[in-house]
């Protein structure tokens, strides 16, 4: 991964308007993020927001400090990529009309440990999960076959080991 890649993980109250507060702050303070995901956690009433961005340390530190002032954010920290696991999923629909192309695509899918989740006469729809590097590499290859459409989830991440458990 590029070295100025940062993952920020926040535990937030599961309340209306929280995502709005987060995105509004990001826009207002002129931060630039790459992905944002929101979902539930093991604890009812608490959601996790995961943000990724590129930029120098100071900018990330400012973003974390500014976000941590939002009262709905219970805990926020930067996750070091080397000390965490992170995954993204993409669904990619590629052109695969003749048999040769189809088998090429299938080959790549199996190398990248993707899955075919739908197929039509002219296309294959692939599900691929992994770290963003792997997904990007796969997408690059698929471009040569012709991507019809694509959707990505954004990154979710957790710290390795026991740390990071929700306390209290």
């Amino acid at each position: 991964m590029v070295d100025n890649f940062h993952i920020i993980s926040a535990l937030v109250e599961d309340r209306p308007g929280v995502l709005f507060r987060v995105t509004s702050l990001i826009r207002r303070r002129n931060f630039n993020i790459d992905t944002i995901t929101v979902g539930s956690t093991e604890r009812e009433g608490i959601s996790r927001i995961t943000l990724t961005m590129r930029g120098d340390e100071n900018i990330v530190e400012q973003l974390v400090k500014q976000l941590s002032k939002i009262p709905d954010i219970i805990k926020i920290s930067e996750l070091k990529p080397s000390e965490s696991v992170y995954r993204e999923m993409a669904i990619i629909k590629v052109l695969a009309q003749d048999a040769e192309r189809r088998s090429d695509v299938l080959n790549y899918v199996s190398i990248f440990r993707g899955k075919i989740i739908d197929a039509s006469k002219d296309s294959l729809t692939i599900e691929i999960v992994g770290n963003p590097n792997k997904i990007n590499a796969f997408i690059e290859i698929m471009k040569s076959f012709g991507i019809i459409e694509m959707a990505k989830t954004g990154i979710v991440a957790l710290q390795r080991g026991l740390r990071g458990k929700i306390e209290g």
Partner: protein
Amino acid sequence: MKISGARAIVEALKREKVEVIFGIPGGATIPFYDVLLESDIRHVLARHEQCAAHMADGYARVKGVPGVCTATSGPGATNLVTGLAAAYMDSSPVIAITGQVPRSMVGKDAFQEADIVGIVNPITKYTFQLESASQIPDVIRLAFIIASTNRRGPVLIDVPRDVQLEDVDFDYTERIKIKGYVVRTGEPHPYSIKRAIGLIMGSERPMILAGGGVIASNASEELIKFAELIMSPIVTTLMGKGAVPEDHPLCLGMVGMHGRIECNKAIEEADLIIAIGTRFGDRTTGKLDEFGRNAKIIHIDIDPAEIGKNVKVDVPIVADAKKALIALYSKLIEFGFSRKESEWINKINRLKESFASNYEEKGDGLKPSKILKILRNILPKNAIITTGVGQNQMWAALHFKVFEPRTFITSGGLGAMGFGLPAAIGAKVAAPDRPVFNIDGDGSFLMTEQDLATAVTERIPIVSIILKNRSLGMVRQWQCLFWNKRYAYVDLGNVPDFVKLAEAYGAEGIRIESYEEFERAARRSLSAEMPIVMEVPISPDEKVLPMVPPGKSLKEVIWYG
């Protein structure tokens, strides 16, 4: 016991010791107002909701406790926006209660519906939209905690009309906490104090930069003791004006774009800048790369996000200003450190003297600086000044010496024209026994002039001194200095006649033509029982000098227009 949501709000406000609410009612707040009518809480009927917010803000800044304003849904709520933004930029604790359309109609573009919670999100510390009356006690309690702790700021509570009518079991004990909001103790970390002490003891030319945070923290006494111990001169930001008495021998006055030249020079020469409760705004620092280039910097601020936001600092101290100053002071005493005289202080005094004559009035006509000096001699030390925005505000900052914290009330961060009059009303409500003077520009005054009606009907005797230069003076000054004197649309004309305007509202209007007249009028106004408006004609060519051109370093001062 079950009571209505509206009653619960009023009950909760009483528990928070709210004495006064500034506002205008409307369809979505009638239930609330109906209960307010019979409560002991005073209501001041504003004539524009922007003013209601500025009044609450002025009240809060003078009293140091949250000020409360209210508006109905839709247009009432949107009118609050400028007032809330001004409070937010200056970290002032204002609570706004807005009416909202009934819950079932939210999102349907109902009559007078506006998504006020969405609109003010970026200009408030926090917002609540009530979903049921049962939330009222907790929400009001939390709103006051959030507004008045840590770095203070405005909080808005949006209350759908039907929530005001719904019954609730009123229980004002602490039931819930907001997990993500921790009220800081404000105690500094011993390690950061130790590091700061090292820098202070090693410095030869220390300089204290005191900001609005010193006033918010009521840390003036501690600051003076500290400064005297280390013999450090003090400069303030605009928001820090009043943090130390401006006749104190160590206090130089305001620094920055319109700062006094000796302050800007002194900060350039310091080898240590101790910044306390300031956010290093661009108006304070000038060109950032050159600010404090030769100095080490200690930054005391209660908001961790302010550390390193604009200026890289050597020693950050995340703490309440007062607590940090107490800690620094007692550590220095423990080490037996103190300074008496120093070459640095002598140098500062020479600087002061060498520029003193530059501030003297020259030329014909009434000079704003002289008017302000005369006013200072008349007013008691605890008199409160509010200002408009523009030249009037900067003249007040430069030439009106302030001796006590919370007596110079100005819209610094947002720079909202129209702030002066309503802020003065709020200030006078907070401190009815002290004189309150609004130093204003004609342009600024016109933006909220209708609230003279409030001052008259509520018999709030505030005095507005309008420095009438018949133009949007500050913009004109920029056009003169940086845009080749191309005066694009800054001419206001000689209208209105502020004497007649005042009279139309039932206030007293006085036209000033000489310094003697001004002095007489100002003295007399000290015992007035009704609002007074003084029209003081000045030349549109009067400038606020010195000035550091935008984007330039503090060294590059302009002295003569």
